[in-house]
């Protein structure tokens, strides 16, 4: 199941593959805010890092 954090980070990477730095930066900010609020599990961090 796709989680918000993994989805955001995955979309971010897709944006970087497309050369869309601006979108990637926005998505990273959103993802980091989720992480700061403690809403991301260990597995989600791991999945996002490896994808």
């Amino acid at each position, binding site marked *: 199941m796709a989680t918000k954090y993994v989805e955001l980070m995955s979309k971010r990477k897709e944006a970087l593959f497309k050369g869309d730095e601006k979108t990637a930066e926005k998505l990273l900010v959103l993802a980091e805010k989720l992480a700061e609020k403690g809403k991301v599990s260990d597995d989600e961090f791991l999945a996002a*890092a490896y994808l």
Partner: protein
Amino acid sequence: MKKMSQHGGFDPTFEKLVREELTTEFSEELSWADEIGEWNVGDFGEVMDGFDFSQLCQRTDGSLYGIAGGKQCRIGTPTTARDKPVRAGARGAGADPSRQINKRFLREVTTQKLQQYLNERKLYGYQRKVIEAELKRREGAGNATAALKALQARLDNVGKKPAEKTPYGLDKDLGVMVNKKLLAQDTAILQRILRERSLNPNQRARVEEEVAGRGESPASAQAPPKRGALKQKGSTKIEGVPGYDAASVYNRPDNEKLGEGAMGAAYRTKGPPPGVVKEGAIGEQEAAAWQRLQGSGRVPEFHGAVVSTDMKSVEGGLGGHVREAKGFLGMGEAQGKPAAQLYLDRENQQKLVDEYVRTRRDIHLRGVAHNDMHGGNFFFDTNTGKGQLVDFGLAQVSYKAALVEAISTFEGDWQAETFLTRRGGVLGAPGATTPLDRLEKGIDRAERILQRRGISPEAVHRAGIRTPQAEIDQILGPMTEDQAKATIEYLYDGV
């Protein structure tokens, strides 16, 4: 400028359109934003932080501005006066009074005309999106009509043609009826039903119970679907651990799913060897980067990869610096936790920053530019004080690219800048001799070398990380890979 608050006289249709657009076009982002307690969504090419509709303003030329994140941002121009004169060279709705995009307009204009508007007119982002949404809605309506006709045709044929039978002896159109008759089928057929048919949880539980009762394991039915399985003919196998087949490991039934996104899915696998296996987009030089960094201590063990030879750029955008292909890649789990997950005391924070810098040093010295070193990809083990990197999807295997990344640490790599700033990496403290301080001096040294060779350090900073190799070659001019390697060694001397 006149203020167009809710007490002012601004066109409520426009606000409605903006609101509708935000809630439909950005509904997903808004739900995320709601969850984290604030708005931060892309809107018409602008970033809107905590957009406040009561702060809508209209300039005398008709442009609408909003206050977002303390800054003014232009969000469009409502057309209210049909007799407004058309200004020479003006763009958007104000330039053409016939382009007042509202419900009445959408109701009255034909699909063909709308398409013409999209193709031929200059429109603001919100206008374009409203028209595109309308066209999509009409297309959907067309599909509904076609579906209705197809249904009518099927009803007309009732009694004329026997229903097609599935291999399980069931009417295809009725779906799977899990009853005594079905449960009496052979075990292999039941396993196939579990694998291939859409069942609700109750149906699945009944079939699984029946299979388990016969002493068979329904496990084979739970194996992850072989999504995107590659034909051996069109793929390349990159060796890591001898005999490791990433595609087979990915499809093991006992794998534990970690997560899935636009770029693929990742599973934790028991192996052997245990680790993580992913399927999806594999970067052009991802496996090569993993291979080159084996033994550096800065990456987990590389198990192996199978990558399609059909390497291509991801569609859309301006085009990235590397291409990608579908494939499977297996690797060990990194030690520690991602830095993004760690909240440390001052002492450990300093250790983390030092390790981050040393990790960059070690990968650059091996001729790899990671190109994506944010806190989620850098793992830090607080017990051993050691840092490791993962995710080489955007990596480039080249000393020249590594040199560009190294020089861009403080300018040209916003992820590294952000990471070091947030983690308290402070430069210039009296008597400071941290790796970060030594790196700063090293970058100065490297820039002087570039200048002596007639290469502009400013051009390198401007290019920054994730620059295509061809452009790097152009910026660094006649510099060879060996010279770039020597410059990196000089840059990191003492770090």
